[in-house]
């Protein structure tokens, strides 16, 4: 993707065959990632008219990007909606909202796709007329509805823990139904770029960013190690004071002529142009990394706090990620934390060594890490590099001797979800196990056995209800009794999560799946319930088999090692 103010019109066809409306009400980063997903749709389906609904404060500054990918952008301007509302009350706000909805109603929308998963977007989705709706929306009973499986998966797993294996861009693509071709290797002419490193040492929350002192160390070491390079510090207007804490630090006094503080001084379009010229971007999880991805500028992201690297690492072929191996990482945004242990678990030396390697136009791989970075520093971090498989991004682990249970589960879930929902196969090698991960997988197998049995019971009682309803004299009492059994099964499935936390994605997914059964009568709802239990049993069987094979591989490997050592004796 190229970011430029000049290329302003999306590819046009004579007669659009359908209108797709994307609803993206969240922040800058999500809008950029939505645009990345839509860019692929534009290539594969140029015949669609694609419109976007987004909030003014996030969409307007990204207009230079959005007008390339969308035929029209509708801005929901809450500043205007709530202007003087303390004095005028709700009526003016309602008039303003009605005017906005009136504009949208002029569009003949075939498919409305809500990609935001916020309450406001779900209510807005319910107010927009469309032939088909994908993503969350509320019905008139104020009950949330999610009819497509990818959105059900996102709703149940993405905000609930760290076991989601997909990048947000791929999640958006999967929800929309974009089948990406295998990504071709991208070549970049790096000599045409300036000797500039752009740093964004801030984030939306304190827990996601290092303190200024640590960034001072990184900047000092980087400038000392790379004498021909300058550093641009970028950020928003509200980050100016934080940037001054860095630039005015006495340690950087003699290097000030090689530091350009652009914080609060650039528009997003200007920042994108600067990123396009730079050789490297270094920062925390923020929209700047996503802007860097648009021009394939190498990114080195330091993930902290509640950031989930697999979801939000910039989506391109030259992304590196360093995240801590702290037990509580990633946390949840509202978790109490006074010490920020994860901030201390990433030593600045690993960042500066990586910067040196990357600005020297060399890649970072496992061999380099082993040879060039102290194992003392490596022991507390995970280091990932982006790669593409089946057109979707994966984060490849560069320190493979530290694979943890979460990483193993993420890979197993990636294989399972792709197979169940997209009917596609992921070829991921068996992970190396250690005693701890081996034990965790064995525990999960017990949980899966319980889940399988419960799903079979669920199928059985769903079938009993169907048989009862189709009999000549259906007994309401018996139907109630079987329904009660199904409720008990749902509760028991939820209890499995307590003993097998690694199975939370399956259990949560089925809770959402069961809450969104199809049908308006008992027969159709029960049939839908039967298929949900059947899908659960199928999913559980696949995961069970994958774990079984992983453990067998581990045992075979251990036996081979034993044989070899015995032979040596």
């Amino acid at each position, binding site marked *: 993707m190229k970011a430029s103010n000049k290329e302003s019109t999306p590819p046009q066809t004579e007669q659009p065959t359908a209108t797709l409306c994307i609803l993206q009400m969240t922040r800058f980063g999500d809008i950029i990632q939505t645009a990345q997903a839509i860019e692929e749709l534009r290539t594969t389906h140029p015949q669609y008219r694609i419109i976007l609904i987004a909030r003014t404060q996030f969409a307007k500054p990204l207009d230079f990007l959005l007008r390339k990918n969308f035929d029209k952008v509708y801005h929901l301007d*809450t500043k205007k909606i*709530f202007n003087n509302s303390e004095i005028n009350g709700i009526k003016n706000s309602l008039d303003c909202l009605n005017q906005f909805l009136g504009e949208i109603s002029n569009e003949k929308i075939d498919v409305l796709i809500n990609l935001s998963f916020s309450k406001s977007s779900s209510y807005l989705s319910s107010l927009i007329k469309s032939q088909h709706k994908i993503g969350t929306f509320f019905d*008139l*009973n104020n009950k949330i509805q999610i009819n497509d499986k990818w959105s059900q998966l996102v709703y149940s797993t993405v905000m609930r823990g760290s076991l989601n294996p997909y990048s947000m861009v791929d999640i958006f693509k999967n929800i929309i139904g974009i089948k990406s071709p295998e990504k071709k290797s991208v070549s970049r002419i790096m000599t045409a770029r300036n000797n500039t490193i752009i740093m964004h040492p801030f984030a939306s929350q304190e827990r996601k960013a290092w303190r200024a002192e640590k960034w001072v160390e990184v900047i000092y070491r980087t400038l000392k190690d790379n004498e021909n390079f300058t550093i641009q510090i970028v950020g928003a207007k509200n980050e100016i004071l934080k940037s001054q804490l860095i630039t005015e630090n006495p340690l950087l006094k003699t290097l000030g002529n090689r530091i350009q503080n652009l914080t609060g001084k650039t528009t997003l379009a200007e920042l994108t142009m600067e990123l396009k010229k730079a050789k490297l971007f270094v920062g925390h999880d923020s929209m700047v990394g996503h802007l860097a991805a648009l021009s394939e500028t190498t990114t080195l992201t330091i993930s902290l706090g509640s950031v989930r690297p697999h979801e939000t690492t910039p989506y391109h072929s030259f992304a590196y990620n360093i995240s801590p191996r702290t037990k509580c990482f990633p946390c949840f945004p509202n978790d109490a934390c006074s010490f920020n242990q994860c901030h201390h678990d990433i030593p600045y030396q690993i960042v500066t060594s990586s910067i040196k390697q990357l600005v020297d136009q060399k890649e970072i791989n496992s061999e380099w890490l082993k040879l060039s970075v102290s194992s003392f520093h490596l022991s507390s971090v995970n280091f990932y590099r982006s790669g593409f498989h089946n057109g979707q991004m994966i984060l490849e682990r560069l320190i493979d001797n530290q694979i943890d249970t979460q990483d193993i589960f993420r890979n197993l879930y990636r294989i399972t979800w792709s197979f169940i929902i997209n009917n596609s196969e992921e070829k991921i090698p068996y992970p190396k196990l250690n005693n701890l991960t081996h034990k965790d997988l064995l525990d999960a197998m017990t949980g899966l056995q319980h889940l399988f049995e419960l799903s079979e019971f669920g199928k059985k009682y769903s079938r009993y209800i169907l048989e009862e309803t189709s009999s000549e004299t259906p007994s309401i009492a018996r139907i109630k009794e079987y329904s009660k059994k199904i409720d008990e099964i749902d509760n028991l499935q939820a209890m499995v999560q307590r003993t097998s936390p690694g199975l939370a994605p399956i259990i949560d997914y089925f809770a959402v799946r069961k809450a969104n059964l199809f049908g308006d009568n008992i027969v159709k709802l029960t049939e839908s319930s039967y298929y949900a239990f059947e899908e659960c049993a199928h999913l559980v069987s696949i995961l069970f088999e994958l774990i079984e094979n992983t453990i067998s591989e581990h045992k075979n490997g251990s036996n081979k090692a034993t044989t070899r050592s015995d032979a040596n004796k």
Partner: protein
Amino acid sequence: MDILKDDFNRELNRINDKIQNNSKLDEEDVKIILLSELSEEDLHESKQ
């Protein structure tokens, strides 16, 4: 005095009663809920 806040309180109470009574909401109710959610999101954004 914040008239919007008062309006929201009154309208949301009315809508909550509807939900408690298992009555269906209408589009106007959904618009009120949407405005209240947007207002809260704006407040949250301004704190960041």
